[in-house]
């Protein structure tokens, strides 16, 4: 019995890896379709976009790269779907050079779904070096001054979408999808000075910190991790990648909880028996 307990406490990590793989793969293959409850944080982002008058402009900052794609990309798609379905104009960019292709794909795919016109209904600026300096330039001199050419090298100053919304102060809403600290850049150099409304989405590990950002009014709402994306998909009534992913996350969370409990039981039993 002692030997078995010792063995359990030092369970081969490969067994854990196999269990986790199964916990993720099986629900993806055989979805459970458990309903996601919507939290007020994601609802606030949805409501803000939903209450914007037709023709308003939303800025979508896609500050992440493929490492955070499973969580943040579905948010980008959901927000774009919501904006395009309500005839809002969307301008996109990224501070992450390795994420530039994700933004391009999201804009191209979703714009095609809603038959939107590039340059008139949406614009993808892509990436440019500069970080916060770009935000200052977009605020002071204008978006087309910071980005004279868009992601595809086309001149931006003549694009219809930028005729009404030339500077950051003209934005109706900014949605920051962040895998890092870029929310600070948008707040300190953007929102504080140009007073636009800001909401966002972050990876699961950042959720704990973003509650504070909402409390101190940096953002009026946010989507937290894959769950936040699934909540937004539910709100727009278009269940997609995030909703499917939630089943895998559900089962894997349960497995990790079970392993923590199991690990603690073996620890205490071993300690009571004087095992190391």
């Amino acid at each position, binding site marked *: 019995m002692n030997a078995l307990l010792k063995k359990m406490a030092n*369970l081969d*990590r490969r067994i*854990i*890896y196999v*269990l*986790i*793989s199964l916990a993720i793969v099986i629900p993806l293959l055989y979805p*459970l379709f*458990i*309903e*996601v*409850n919507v*939290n007020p944080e994601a609802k606030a982002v949805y409501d803000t976009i939903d209450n914007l008058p037709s023709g308003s402009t939303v800025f979508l900052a896609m500050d992440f790269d*493929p*490492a*955070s*794609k*499973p969580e943040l990309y579905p948010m980008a798609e959901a927000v774009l779907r919501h904006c395009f379905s309500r005839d809002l104009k969307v301008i996109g960019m990224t501070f992450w050079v*390795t994420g530039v*292709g994700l933004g*391009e*794909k999201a804009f191209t*795919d979703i714009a095609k779904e809603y038959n939107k016109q590039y340059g008139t209904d949406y614009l993808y600026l892509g990436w*440019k*070096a*500069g*970080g*916060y*300096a*770009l935000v*200052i*330039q977009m605020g*002071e001199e204008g978006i087309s001054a910071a980005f004279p050419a868009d992601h595809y090298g086309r001149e931006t100053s003549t694009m219809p979408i930028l005729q009404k919304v030339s500077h950051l102060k003209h934005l109706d809403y900014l949605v920051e999808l962040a895998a890092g600290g870029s929310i600070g850049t948008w707040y300190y150099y953007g929102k504080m000075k140009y007073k636009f409304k800001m909401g966002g989405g972050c990876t699961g590990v950042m*959720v*704990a*910190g973003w*509650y*504070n950002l909402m*409390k101190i009014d940096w953002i009026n709402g946010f989507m937290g*991790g894959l*769950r936040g994306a699934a909540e937004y998909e539910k709100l727009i009534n278009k269940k997609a990648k995030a909703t499917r992913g*939630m*089943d895998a*996350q*559900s*089962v*894997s*969370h*349960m*497995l*990790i*909880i079970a*392993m*923590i*409990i*199991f*690990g*603690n039981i073996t*620890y*205490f039993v071993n300690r009571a028996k004087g095992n190391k």
Partner: protein
Amino acid sequence: MIVAFVMGVFFALQYYIPHPFTDDLLTGISKWFIVISGIAMGLGIVSLFYLHYHKIKRRAPAWGFSFVMFIALFAMVGIGIYCANAEVITETGKQTIYGWLYQNFMVPLQSTMFSILAFYVASAAFRAFRAKTKEATLLLIAAIIVMFARVPMGEYVYAQIPTFQVGGVTIPPSIGDITSWIMKTINMAAQGGISLGICLGIIAMSLKIIFGIEKSYMGSTK
């Protein structure tokens, strides 16, 4: 050091002087920053070259990966510059070769690297997350509740527990309310303290740089 002092003092003061002159100056200086960022990127590539070239030259452990890095770097840069408009036909339509490489190499590789974390987290949770002290026990309980409640399956299972009213209060409270309390009360109090500490640290470090006390950014070891 003089540049750091002048720029540091200027940027700090500029924030408190809302005048067109200071705004123009800030915009002008921000353009310098954009140029410097571009140069820094070039410097980064040179540094990367230097590091991996020497790894290959010294036949350092895993030098083969450095070789792969060079192939990947040259392939992406070369295709990006010389075949910028060349397209391939994919299932979803036309795509540039660069875009195809990005979507089919970079995205899966980076996603895979990050997803490996899930396995390490699970293994570490099993081995290290033990209720050895009172503090660790509290952390463990909070973590289990939040992990349980943040997924639909947890909410579904918890919803099966029968509830009853005592003096207008629902017993047990909903799992969403419990998690919300943990995140918005306990978590936010801790996060606030951490954020304040970080901000004070940033201010202290900025002052040390502005006044030339901290010189490590110039390569000084003192």
